């Protein structure tokens, strides 16, 4: 099926037509709902105004003083949360460990590393026979299935296999990462989207300075 056949199939599916008179009645229903909302809002704002007046009457401290106190408390809480001693600054320890390990391995096998696979038994390597892998931007990829999780460091254009499914890793000109499987596509521009049964996370590795 090509794109035009797909579009044709989609367009042939019509929206069911409502009963006769529906479209004449719809605007009337909308406008009467608006009218009701307006009346409710008016009643609510009158009640709220009365309640506010009563509340500030009970607490005689001026409103500005209360607000200033609340702002100061929030600022203090935020400061303590952000700068508390011993706060961990590196986001993902697995990622940091993978970066370190990858740089060590590429130092040992320059231009030979296709992929480094991280699992429960530690890192394992997929190497080329000859040092013929051109240098390109390395990518960290995490593919989590329903029961387990697989982590890799690889390069654009390399293929990864998880539970028999092959994923191709690609980097576009702006540094965006795409992980393309047979049934799913994951893009770093929309990291929240789930790719089939897998949760995928991928990002370029910082290059060694």
């Amino acid at each position, binding site marked *: 099926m090509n794109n035009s056949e797909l579009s044709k199939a*989609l367009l*042939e599916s019509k929206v069911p037509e409502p009963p006769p008179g529906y479209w004449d009645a719809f605007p009337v229903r909308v*406008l009467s*709902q608006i009218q009701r909302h*307006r009346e409710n809002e008016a009643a609510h704002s009158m009640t709220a105004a009365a309640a506010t007046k009563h509340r500030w009457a009970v607490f005689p401290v001026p409103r500005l003083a209360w607000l200033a106190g609340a702002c100061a408390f929030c600022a203090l809480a935020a400061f303590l949360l952000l700068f508390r001693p011993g706060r961990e600054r590196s986001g993902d320890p697995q990622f940091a460990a993978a970066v370190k390990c990858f740089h060590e391995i590429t130092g040992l096998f320059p231009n030979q590393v296709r992929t480094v696979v991280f699992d429960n038994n530690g890192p394992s390597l997929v190497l080329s026979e000859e040092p013929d892998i051109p240098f390109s931007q390395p990518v960290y990829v995490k593919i989590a299935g329903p029961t387990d999780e697989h982590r890799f460091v690889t390069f654009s254009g390399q293929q990864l296999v998880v539970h028999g499914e092959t994923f191709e890793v690609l980097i576009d000109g702006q540094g965006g990462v795409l992980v393309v499987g047979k049934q799913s596509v994951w893009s770093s521009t929309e990291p929240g989207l789930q790719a089939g049964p897998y949760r995928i996370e991928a990002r370029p590795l910082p290059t060694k300075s």
Partner: protein
Amino acid sequence: MPVLEPDPSRDTQSRMSSGDPFESVVREHQRMIYSLCYRMTGSQADAEDLAQETFLQAYSHWLQFRGDAKISSWLYRIAVNQCLNWNKRRTRREILHREWSSETWESSADLPPSHSRVQNALLQLHPKQRAAVVLTIYDGLSHKEAAKALGCSETTVSWRLFAARRKLKALLADLYPTKAS
């Protein structure tokens, strides 16, 4: 599509009067918004509720509407957000799928059998991908216009469409069996 200039000097009471421009906005766009909501939900009842909510939202933000934009684009954006929020709230999706096939409007029975296949396939897409398909394929918006309605970049729309087409082709391959790859 006529563009109505909002008039901030008019108060809400005068807007509710007979011949109100907002009523003509509803009349003019009701089918478009209802269709979008139906494609997004697969349910006539929910589409009706969401279309009403869309116009209520539009009315409450009527003064903020910028006259340089098309009303239809503005309504699309509100409707898409309504549908995406509806999807987040909805926890009974499987029940919805079952309900859909047995809904009672007589006109549904007149539709060809492939209709339910297509609508079910649409419902299996991620809601943001579905919105991209509805806006570009059904409503004929350009990627730029769809990106504006969805609040994302054109590239993101393109990727959502790519992923959506890939999945829809897999789900609907047998509608074109002779050419299926």
